């Protein structure tokens, strides 16, 4: 598939997350890259250990134990490049998402152009916008200054001006930033990153460089109708890694051994999504969702155009913000029968204090899954409101992170993803069970063949191909006939009713032909689907037809709601096959 010649290199990739540090050892086996071993341990950047390298070394020792290969020398330093082909590794990569979200203040000239772009840029990294200032800000200058000083940002993102545009407004904004910088204590002055008019880079650096560190990237808006978001995000990634190195010196110590500069996990994941969208259907998008403990990243791309959005909420400590701002009924609506809501609330809050904890009982597992459903749903709604979702749906939805890929039976995982993400059209759900997407992206710049071959391998699980249809017909009405033909078999027809979830077995690796024929009563929109025959891939659950509508509306009556949730799960378990 790839024109790049195979260079047989052993690769060690480390992903340092908020609660877990993972290691992946890849090597060439029978002419293609394979995942040879993986390891996981708790992340160690926080007290009492306060050194990311303790976690890294622990995973490397685990890899040594599994493979029998010596990776560390007598000084406990990683052997890079490999020696005699059997000691050490040829390439070493790090991706990272640990550490608190960085407080960012954004400064743009116009609130609906440069400020909009620079705020989107902030969302591609592990940062929270604490203040946003533009020239058409309705507050007085004094109020703007007070607001930024109060917010005490750690970084300032400054954009504005097209490359041939006026420089006066940029100077004016730079003056305001200079005044603010002088009000902040010297050791608390933020790093300023200028992503505006390139002819002003020297002026801005000279002016603001008197007070703080200033870095620059390419212009995020070189022309009014041209946005360079991902290019700037990639440049920002290196600056962000450098900033983390200033915060946590332990990561700085290991960086010189890396074959490429450590990469924020969100950017690594974005690289893989972008690549997949370039080789996939240009009309449809690719999405990847990584639910972590400290954050959630949703990366999507269509026709090579990438969007990365990092939410400051995950399923660990940062989950507190979500619990505080979400009506608890929005979570309990996903509870199956027999769950005590107050015990569920206690459990979820306990998770914020002990983010690594694992649900031990069946009840606690479904409580956590219910919270994840609502969390994913709220994030997708957020992206939809910002116009950041592809209209025709996503051809492939890659799911990463332990909670999305390992916390439940395959049925539970699929229904959690369907209820949370509520996809439209035709989508294949693929599980990244080892949570390696970010590390593949970290390796992609210098070892491009490895991620390509890994993506095609069996380490990614095709959970199901889902056809989501939307109809305004009454529940129970037959809205379509699905005709499915497996290789070498007769065509089978399935009548699909409004409100149902239907599973049609198609084994992994098998490609089937499918056709959807709406009934007269269906009043159905075929968003993201075609009326003609199309091909679908098999998976653990084969083909699933989701006719529950969008958004999924649950009955207010508890008994009916619980019965409905139970019947959907039963459908996936194959207890209610519609034919």
């Amino acid at each position, binding site marked *: 598939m790839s024109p790049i010649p195979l260079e047989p290199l052993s690769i060690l990739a480390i992903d340092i997350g908020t609660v877990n540090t993972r290691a992946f050892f890849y090597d060439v086996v029978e002419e293609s890259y394979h995942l040879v071993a993986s390891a996981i*341990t*708790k992340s*160690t950047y*926080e*007290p*009492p*250990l*306060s050194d990311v390298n*303790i*976690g890294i070394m*622990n995973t490397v020792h685990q890899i040594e134990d599994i493979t029998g290969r010596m990776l560390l020398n007598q000084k406990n330093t990683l052997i890079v490049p490999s020696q005699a082909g059997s000691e050490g590794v040829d390439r070493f990569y790090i991706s990272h998402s640990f*550490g*608190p979200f960085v407080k960012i203040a954004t400064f743009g000239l116009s609130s609906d152009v440069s400020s909009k772009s620079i705020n989107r840029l902030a969302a591609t990294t592990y940062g929270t916008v604490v203040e946003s200032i533009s020239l058409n800000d309705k507050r007085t*200058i*004094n109020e703007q*200054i*007070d607001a930024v*000083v109060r917010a*005490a940002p750690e970084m300032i993102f400054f954009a504005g001006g097209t490359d041939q545009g006026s420089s006066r407004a940029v100077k004016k904004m730079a*003056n*305001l930033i*200079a*005044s603010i910088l*002088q*009000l902040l*204590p010297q*050791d*608390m002055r933020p790093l300023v990153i200028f992503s505006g008019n390139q002819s002003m880079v020297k002026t801005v650096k000279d002016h603001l460089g008197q007070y703080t560190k200033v870095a620059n990237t390419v212009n995020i808006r070189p022309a009014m109708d041209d946005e360079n978001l991902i290019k700037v995000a990639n440049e920002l990634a290196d600056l962000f890694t450098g900033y983390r190195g200033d*915060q*946590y010196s332990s990561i700085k110590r290991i960086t010189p051994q890396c074959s490429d500069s450590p990469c924020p996990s969100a950017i690594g994941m974005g690289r893989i999504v972008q690549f997949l969208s370039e080789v996939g259907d240009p009309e449809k998008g690719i999405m990847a969702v990584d639910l972590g403990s400290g954050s959630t990243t949703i990366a999507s791309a269509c026709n090579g155009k990438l969007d990365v959005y990092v939410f400051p909420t995950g399923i660990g400590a940062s989950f507190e913000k979500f619990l505080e701002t979400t009506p608890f009924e929005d979570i309990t609506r996903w509870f199956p029968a027999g769950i005590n809501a*107050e*015990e569920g*609330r*206690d*459990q*979820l*809050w*306990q998770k914020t*204090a*002990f983010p*690594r*904890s*694992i*649900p*031990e*009982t*069946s009840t*606690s*597992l479904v409580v956590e899954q219910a919270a994840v459903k609502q969390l994913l749903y709220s994030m997708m709604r957020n992206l939809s409101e910002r116009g950041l979702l592809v209209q025709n749906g996503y051809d492939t939805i890659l799911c990463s992170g332990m909670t999305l890929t*390992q*916390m*439940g*039976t395959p049925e539970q995982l699929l229904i959690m993803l369907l209820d949370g993400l509520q996809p439209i059209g035709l989508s294949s759900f693929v599980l990244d069970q080892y949570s390696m997407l970010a590390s593949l992206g970290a390796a992609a710049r210098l070892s491009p063949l490895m991620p390509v071959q890994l993506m095609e391998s069996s380490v990614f699980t095709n959970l199901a191909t889902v056809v989501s249809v939307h109809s305004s017909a009454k529940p129970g009405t037959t809205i379509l006939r699905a005709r499915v033909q497996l290789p070498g078999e007769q065509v089978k027809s399935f009548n699909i009713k409004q409100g149902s979830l239907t599973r049609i077995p198609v084994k992994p690796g098998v490609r089937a032909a499918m056709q959807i024929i709406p009934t007269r009563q269906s009043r159905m929109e075929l968003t993201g689907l075609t009326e003609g025959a199309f091909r679908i891939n098999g998976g653990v659950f084969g083909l699933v037809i989701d006719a529950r509508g969008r958004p999924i509306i649950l009955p207010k009556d508890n008994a009916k709601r619980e019965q409905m949730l139970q019947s959907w799960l039963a459908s996936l378990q194959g207890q209610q096959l519609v034919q």
Partner: protein
Amino acid sequence: MLASFAQISPAIKIHRSRILPVNGSVIVRKGQKVNENDIVAEASLPAHHVLIDVVQAFGLADPKLAATYIKRAAGETLDHHDIIAETGGMFSRIIRTPKPGKIITVRDGLVVIETEAKSISLKALYPGIVFDILQDRGVVIETSGAVVQAAWANGLTGVGPLICKTDSRSNELVFSSLEVTARGAVIAGGTCSKPDILTQAAQLPVAGLILGTMPASMIEVAKAQPYPILLIDGFGKTGMDSTSWKLLFSLANKEVILNGETTGGLTPTKPEVMVSATVDEQNSASAKMFTSGQTVRVHTAPNLGQTGRIEKILPGTVTLVNGLKVAAASIIMDNNERKTIPVANLDVIGFTS
């Protein structure tokens, strides 16, 4: 396997940072002895700023001219209506300060004035020796004594004599626990599921409340209280773990420090209860890994708050009743029952920080 830790120790030396939110002045010296109520640092929190653009106000064609008209310098204090800049001559134009304050900067024709600054002071909270000075920001205090780390707190600090008000570690705190002897004291109890009790404790008032657990539905009420509330084990109704309870019970009537401030950031701190005492020998573990024989506390239901000893770390993974495959340990619980618990749900008790 790398372990997680819960600091529950009857005798330990610790270092605790006390840091101002903004730069200020540290008013103690290294090696100085401090008590919990001593002020160690002070700062001025700027409330408002005023930016005066002299170039624009005078309509100057050349911004460099502004310097000749500005009559003030950075650092000067201003009274109401003091002159900032004036053009001079017969029809002199004048810019006055709109508010009293202090000039922070004068540059490029821009004058920035800080107004309405608010003074804040930082207490030592921990009695001990100033171990290190964090220039302009605060101090590190070396202290020793008993420490019990908590899972959650409402963000406040306090000091007072400790009274254990429930008979057992799992009992509920009741209204009758809050009689007059509880005034000014730090109350310890197993659990509390009545929000009104928290409100009544504020009226008494108490100096603080230490609970094993509390229902999460009471978080809002707990955050509204003017005194510190610490939950040793977290959320629910199970009460306090036996190790913490025994230690706190042994400290009854002693002056306890409640630090409910949880800071995020680079070195996040957990809330804790501390009783100052001289320590000759530390009673604390120092291993980084889970190993057989370690005393552990379970922090997740259904065994939340139970303590025991690691019999062995089980090889590979174990399948739980809910189907999850996890790394686990065999634990001999305090009641001698053997249980298999995911290692992710265990804290080793007593690690030196």
